[in-house]
């Protein structure tokens, strides 16, 4: 009986599972927990599980490195665990916890830059407003710090690759770092 192990990312969260197939029954182990389900492939994009007395369909589609999975109306993105693959839409990047490179989580247009270079900012303060799909989206800092660099101006089209603003934690912190 063979067991396959998978290092997955589920919506960006690392998940390590092992899977054993025995005559159409799947044993999925994660940590101490075991999920047992009958599984049948219906089509290239559709699996049927019988699980806990219920029939559950799972739908899958692959696009590049990602496998999109829908279970009971919820979508998940599953990918191989690699340090830089993140959940679609992940915007921020922290270096050594002191620098924050803020990106737009979606493509859109900059309608307001709410801070200036050198300005002190507090956690959750709005840095930039990006309009996408006719709604304004406030892009905020997740750390207290100082705006080191602003990469965009009003009217710029941005995608999720290009950094908008860089924030650095203030040097010589007057008080001890929070636990």
């Amino acid at each position: 009986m063979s067991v396959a192990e998978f290092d997955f990312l589920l919506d960006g969260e690392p998940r390590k599972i092992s899977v054993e197939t025995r005559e159409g029954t799947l044993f999925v182990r994660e940590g101490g927990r075991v999920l047992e389900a009958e599984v049948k492939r219906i089509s290239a994009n559709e699996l049927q599980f019988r699980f806990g007395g219920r029939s559950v369909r799972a739908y899958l589609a692959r696009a590049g490195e990602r496998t999109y999975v829908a279970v009971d109306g919820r979508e998940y993105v599953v990918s191989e665990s690699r340090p830089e693959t993140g959940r679609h839409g992940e915007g921020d990047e922290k270096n050594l916890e002191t620098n924050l490179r803020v990106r737009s989580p979606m493509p859109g247009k900059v309608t307001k830059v709410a801070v200036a270079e050198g300005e002190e900012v507090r956690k959750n303060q709005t840095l930039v407003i990006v309009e996408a799909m006719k709604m304004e989206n406030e892009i905020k800092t997740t750390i207290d710090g100082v705006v080191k660099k602003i990469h965009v101006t009003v009217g710029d089209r941005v995608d999720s690759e290009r950094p908008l603003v860089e924030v650095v934690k203030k040097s010589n912190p007057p008080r001890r770092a929070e636990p």
Partner: protein
Amino acid sequence: MFGKIMIANRGEIAVRVIKACREMGIGSVAVYSEADAASLHVRLADEAVPVGPPPAAESYLDMERILEAARATGAEAIHPGYGFLSENAAFARLCEDRGIVFIGPNSRALELVGDKVRARQTMEKAGIPTVPGMTSVSTSLDEIRAAARALGYPVIVKASAGGGGKGMRIVSDEDGLVPALEAGRREAKSAFGDDSVYLEKFIEEPRHVEFQVLADDRGHTVHLFERECSIQRRHQKIVEETPSPALDPELRARMGETAVRAMRAAGYNNAGTVEFLLDRDRRFYFLEVNARLQVEHPVTELTTGVDLVRQQILIASGTGLTLRQENLLQRGHAVECRIYAEDPKMNFLPSAGRIVLLREPKGPGIRFDSGIYEGVEVPVYYDPILAKLIVWAEDREAACRRMSAALDDCVILGIHTTAGFLKDVVNHPEFRAGRATTSFIGKFFSSWGMGEGEDDRQRLALAAAAFDGLTRTTRAAGLSVRGGKMEIETPWTTLGGWRAGGER
């Protein structure tokens, strides 16, 4: 009757109107921006005309280009759908001037009700109760500040040309006034090309109840009962239903009669909706007229059996309205969920990209009005609505259960959607009890934890991905392979980059 109608819109509503045209034996003309060349409405229409680059202001909102497309194709009428030019009186007037029928109200009525401030004045004159607010638009901060003080906080900033929650901001104290005005003006400017805003008193925890009205050119006006639209996020309706759990026959009759009176006062014709706020003491206030077909019109169609788009076209063609108030009835219960391209796990950020897999829910009492297909790229330029799921059943409880099951069967992969979130909304005890007000989402869904059974769902998702990896015979990147021969192979030939563990 018209021989050809142009639809000056995109997405699911353009598809809806194209289907009505086809049923009525009328030719359909789609218009599309460069971003929509491969969109569903373009594929379904008899003819399709490009009208410019992706930004709406240079395509769907460009009146001259739209009118030129109508002229070039010989369309006799334009259906504006909702949003875009649908409530633009200048556009309706241009159509009238050029002898093209605008499928909507006459330009005078449109101008009147489209100006929220003048509409209020008209309604007050007709003795219809309105929410206290500024009676004129002002650009002077001092005046606006004084008005806010007189109304008493909280107040709400609204776009004068508004609708759809765009440009709206609730202000709880004077400190918040300036930023709210700024944001409201910016959003109003970009959504409607007009940055005038005004203030209204913010009524706390109201219900949002609206009445569908149809009126022909001869003044014959009927209402098709209410829609309850209290479930809103950022002032965007997300779940609608009819009948409203908050109305009894007496209140329903009174509000319906008021809605008809309001539309007569405005000199309104064609389809329109009168929106009311209903407060905790069952007092109702006129809010605004939505001078167009509403996103949520299907719930009315399913409970009254009236095809509203067909009625719009009949009225516009000069055929009188043959429906009589005493013959109109509500039967059963209908619920609609709007499925948006937004990520509920990431604070509803818009999600754009390719739809790699689509399975539409089907079954008794299930309707799926969609603007998408498998393989389409969802553009970032427009409203994020992808589709609407509408269900009908004998009563409210049965309709909610049907909706919940249908949402399970709604599979849209490749982008994030609100389907899973909507299922939790529909299954929430407050909603099920019929007690939800406009503060429902803020109160119960300020953060979304993915609900009950999430552990098992996640584990099944992982199991599915693993099983797929172990048994797949094709390695198609991108789009799905359909109808391919599937054989169970040994893991060792197909595992690819995945690491296999020990033997046992």
